[in-house]
């Protein structure tokens, strides 16, 4: 059984269908990427998994538990963390306070996780008393990842983590995500930067107008004519 299984969900914003009969799975330890143009429904899929929006039909199963209609806090508690695209930090809180907020639902071992995150991102330790809003774009992204990790997730979902970052930072970020994945964390990655997403993922789904039009291993996708034309620039 896969870690996360989405069975033909449809999600609507009022009357507009954002996700259409979508099926997807993530195996334990996998790094899966979700590719698509703006408005393809990628963010909506992540929001549905997190419980921030309810699918009209279909089901979402995590670790064998139906989470389709579960509250967001229960879903976090089960082990899914979400690194959203926008407003991903509390800008007027300090770096450390942001991290501690990520552990809101945990009671024990928070200090240990914090140390682990500081060892992953030493710059966060250096700036722990600075306001999150005063960090650079790359540092803010690291803080957002650190905050998501504070809940000790089994599945971490990223929404466009490379957005607005300088190219060298994007590479660094990608290797950080890969690194976390190799330490056993399952990852669902939403990206517009297809090249970078393919460079670290095992499998990929191509979304168009809320539908999965293609899904395969990254190696196969890279060879696919349609994918090459639409997403890899020839």
């Amino acid at each position, binding site marked *: 059984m896969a870690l996360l299984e989405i069975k033909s969900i449809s999600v609507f914003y009022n009357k507009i269908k954002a996700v259409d009969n979508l099926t997807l799975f993530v195996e334990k330890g996998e790094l899966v990427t979700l590719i698509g143009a703006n408005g393809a429904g990628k963010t909506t899929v992540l929001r549905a998994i997190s419980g*921030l929006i309810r699918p009209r039909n279909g089901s979402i199963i995590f670790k064998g538990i139906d989470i389709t209609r579960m509250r967001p806090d229960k879903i*976090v508690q089960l082990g899914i*963390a979400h690194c959203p695209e926008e407003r991903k*930090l*509390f800008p007027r*809180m300090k770096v450390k306070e942001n991290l501690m*907020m990520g552990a*809101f*639902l945990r009671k024990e071992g928070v200090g240990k996780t914090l140390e682990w995150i500081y060892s992953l991102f030493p710059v966060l330790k250096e700036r722990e008393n600075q306001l999150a809003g005063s960090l650079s774009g790359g540092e803010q992204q690291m803080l957002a990842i650190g905050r998501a990790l504070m*809940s000790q997730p089994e599945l971490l979902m990223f929404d466009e983590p490379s957005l607005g970052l300088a190219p060298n930072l994007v590479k660094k970020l990608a290797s950080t995500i890969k690194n976390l994945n190799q330490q056993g964390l399952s990852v669902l990655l939403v990206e517009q930067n297809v090249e970078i997403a393919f460079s670290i993922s095992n499998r990929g789904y191509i979304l168009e107008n809320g539908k999965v039009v293609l899904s395969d291993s990254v190696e196969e996708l890279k060879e696919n004519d349609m994918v090459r034309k639409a997403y890899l620039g020839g």
Partner: protein
Amino acid sequence: MKLLPDSKQPFLSKTRIFSIIIFLFAILLPLVIVDDYFRYLLVITAINAVLVIGLDITLGYAGRINLAQAGFWGIGAYASAVASLNWGIPFWGGVVFAMILSAAMAFFIGYPSLKLAGHYFVIITFVFGIILTILFNNLLSITRGPMGLPGIPPVAIGHYQIINRVPYYYLTLFFILLVMIFKYKLINSRLGRALIAIREGEALAESIGINTHKYKIFAFTISAAIAGIAGALYAHFLSYIGPSSFTFEQSMELFTMNLIGGAGTMAGPIIGTALLTVFAEVARNFSPALARIAFGLFLVLAIIFTPKGIMGLIEKVRNR
């Protein structure tokens, strides 16, 4: 700016010494203020302070504008008045009854309306406040409508009845102290952190696993319960209550006091209440219409120049 309280604080920190001095000052005030009318004003200010401290939990911490605080105050006042007049329950029981009733109404209103976006919640509290005023005016069998409820017995501690203004002021001060300690503990708890996170970014708070709906209801209910305390204090102080006290205008004044003093701070509500209650009273003797215009003007000026109120100004000067 400091959003979350520091966990490590020396026992006699600057802020703690400051609060003790302020409190001693408040205790000594009646020695300076000997005029009977000003002593009356002192008690009213203290009761308003209880209301604004309560309001601040919703406004300053959960970040939700609540325009029904005077309505909950009224519920508390009528609850304790009816309890003592009809059932012979003494003040101490009345306070508890007032808190429970106000809190229950807030829960009832908050549960559905706090699921909505912020501006809808403001509208609902606004309308609810007005509905309450209408009810106070028309539920004749309970409130006697515009005639009000006279003859509410004074507060008694054993055989001693608190009739004079100075001891009543101390009674109210005692409740301010209780409410302040409660609020301080609350803000430093998990619940407080959740509320601050909601204020700073509700969508994010939700996505990191904070049940925002639950915590917002908590905040709103606690605000109303504290308004209930103020209601009981008010009813037993004046020994008469009528619907004209618990209006939307009053809610608006409390809101202004909170913003001008500084929302989301410990001292802000007290500073704002003290300044504006006295100002309102003086200005009203001059011209009631002008007083209202001045309140509106203060509100606009505060929002433009110092969104964190007087406490925000103090902090700015300190950090310089």
